[in-house]
């Protein structure tokens, strides 16, 4: 079966907008509606964040949304319940993003099976290192038609980027700068060298740029160097305003790029 992530990158080569949100935030049962509204507004790919008590790669915004989500009672089992019928309405690729410990406690095998059942296409688990993935979990992912999305940063060596490219099947998540999520370092300010260096490597996988993408300018700039970009913290902030989900989502996507 064709994976939806591959279909997306085959049909759309540029300006892909990918949005991250924390499941269970702002309210416990907003998950399905947020996904549906994002798709309606032309978002290309969605990352559903599984909240974790100790998100060490995340900045304050996602830390706080995770804390709220956990207080609201979110957990992995509940999340799968909320996603049970999501494929009846949503066509775009869906990715789950989270830390490894909740997945380990659920059981990696069970977790992947459930992902496949509800129609998840890939996983981003920042603290599951490539080496552990390849020696323990690769087959489980493959059996369930799940791509493992790996990260690279400005510090990643060329040899390691090649290794990551070889091990990837969906896309490569390019962390824009040395940073936790939502950091204020502006993409256009620096690391042009890094973006160009990666562009010239002719990797077999497409790339999306994430971390610190927050508005029209940073999104447009990132799109010069990759197939698109990922927005997390800025979207979480937009959801905090308290307006109707439908309205804040529409307004947010419009603020990032023109409708197609």
């Amino acid at each position: 079966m064709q994976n939806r992530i591959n279909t997306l990158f085959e049909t759309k080569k540029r300006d892909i907008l990918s949005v991250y949100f924390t499941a269970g935030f702002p309210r416990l049962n907003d998950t399905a509606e947020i996904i549906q509204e994002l798709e309606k507004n032309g978002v290309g790919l969605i990352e559903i964040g599984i909240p974790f008590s100790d998100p060490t790669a995340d900045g304050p915004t996602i830390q706080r949304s995770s804390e709220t989500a956990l207080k609201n009672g979110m957990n992995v089992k509940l999340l799968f319940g909320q996603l049970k019928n999501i494929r009846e309405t949503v066509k775009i690729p869906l990715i789950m993003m989270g830390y490894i410990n909740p997945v380990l406690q659920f059981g990696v095998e069970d977790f992947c099976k459930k992902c496949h059942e509800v129609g998840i296409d890939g996983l981003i688990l920042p603290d599951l290192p490539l080496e552990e993935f390849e020696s323990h979990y690769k087959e489980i992912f493959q059996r369930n038609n799940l791509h493992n999305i790996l990260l690279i940063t400005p510090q990643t060596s060329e040899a390691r980027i090649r290794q990551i490219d070889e091990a990837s099947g969906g896309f490569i998540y390019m962390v824009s700068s040395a940073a936790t999520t939502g950091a204020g370092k502006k993409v256009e300010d620096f690391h042009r060298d890094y973006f160009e260096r990666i562009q010239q490597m002719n990797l077999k996988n497409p790339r999306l740029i994430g971390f610190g993408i927050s508005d029209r300018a940073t999104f447009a700039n990132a799109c010069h160097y990759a197939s698109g970009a990922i927005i997390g913290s800025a979207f979480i902030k937009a959801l905090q305003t308290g307006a109707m989900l439908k309205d804040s989502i529409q307004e947010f996507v419009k603020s990032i790029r023109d409708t197609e």
Partner: protein
Amino acid sequence: MKYDVNEKGYYGEFGGAWIPEMMYTNIDELRRDYLEIIKSEAFQKEFDQLLKDYVGRPSPLYFASRLSEHYGTKIFLKREDLNHTGSHKLNNTVGQILLAERLGKTRIIAETGAGQHGVATATVCALRGVKCVVYMGALDVSRQAPNVKKMKMLGAEVIPVHSGNKTLKDATNEAMRDWINNPEDTHYIIGSVVGPHPYPDMVARFQSVISREMRIQLLEKTGSEFPTRVLACVGGGSNAAGAFYHYLDEDLVELIGVEAAGKGVETKETAATLRVGTPGVLHASRTMLMQNEDGQITEPYSISAGLDYPGIGPLHSHLFTTGRAKYLASTDEEVLEAALLLTRKEGIIPALESAHALAALDKIQMKPDDVNVVNLSGSGNKDMETYLDYFGY
């Protein structure tokens, strides 16, 4: 050695380096270089010299005669409380600052609970003229105020952490985030045998001076390098790792780690990870953790800020599951009484952390001829307020 870390950074099924890619370059550099650096002659020479002239080593092995009489056995105290800055923590920070210099790092970050590791880090940074940032849970900032003042006088920036329980785990999260944001110039001096490989092994090696000296001192005092048992408190487990290190392969030496039971292991207010924990991944290591069934880390509790941690070093998880070491837990109340007992019997006020190991003397069978060594990891100076509150002086 049987209990050595393997080339992938594992002790049995525990350990590894479950790091996000953002930390990979730094951890990979450490992993490739640490052994060569710390085994080099120049490093060893400088390290040993500083341990001797600056830390004040070897720390005495003191025969506690009145305490021995009280328990009807022989009790020696390994006096890590007499080190400069008042605990074993300086052994590790001296080693890591020398390593950081060799890696060309110019900025040091650290997490701290009781403030002992923060002070020890700020101290070596002052010694070498390096910039120092210490993350400390906001709750610990208020319960360990004297150490916060010391760090500031030493020139460190102390950043209170307001997330989570505002204790050691949260300070560690924040230090990791700092490192992710500052990968080029910064070295992270982790304060215990926790975190991704190679930290647990590296910190254990720096602390292993404790048991290296013990063997020499015991031979002198008792005619044998080998005691009946060694007892040490366990938060992350660095003083225990140091006290156990040169006895790990000596099966006749009983090794006892003592965790913080808090208000009791059967209550929710505990930090006895091995009693109530299950395997999982926290702070980039697969180890025993306090967590709920959804894999969320639960908040620990202990009267002592230095043991208030929901995880434990992977070496200890391995020693626990293989049965090589035994782990007990002491409650807040037992700890306070044990601290008073040592104070009145020997004129030594121990750190709350160390008093956990002392309290375990009440929990084990000891014969008159047994030789027991308690690692007295730190001094009670920082805990006077807690002691005064409890005993009402």
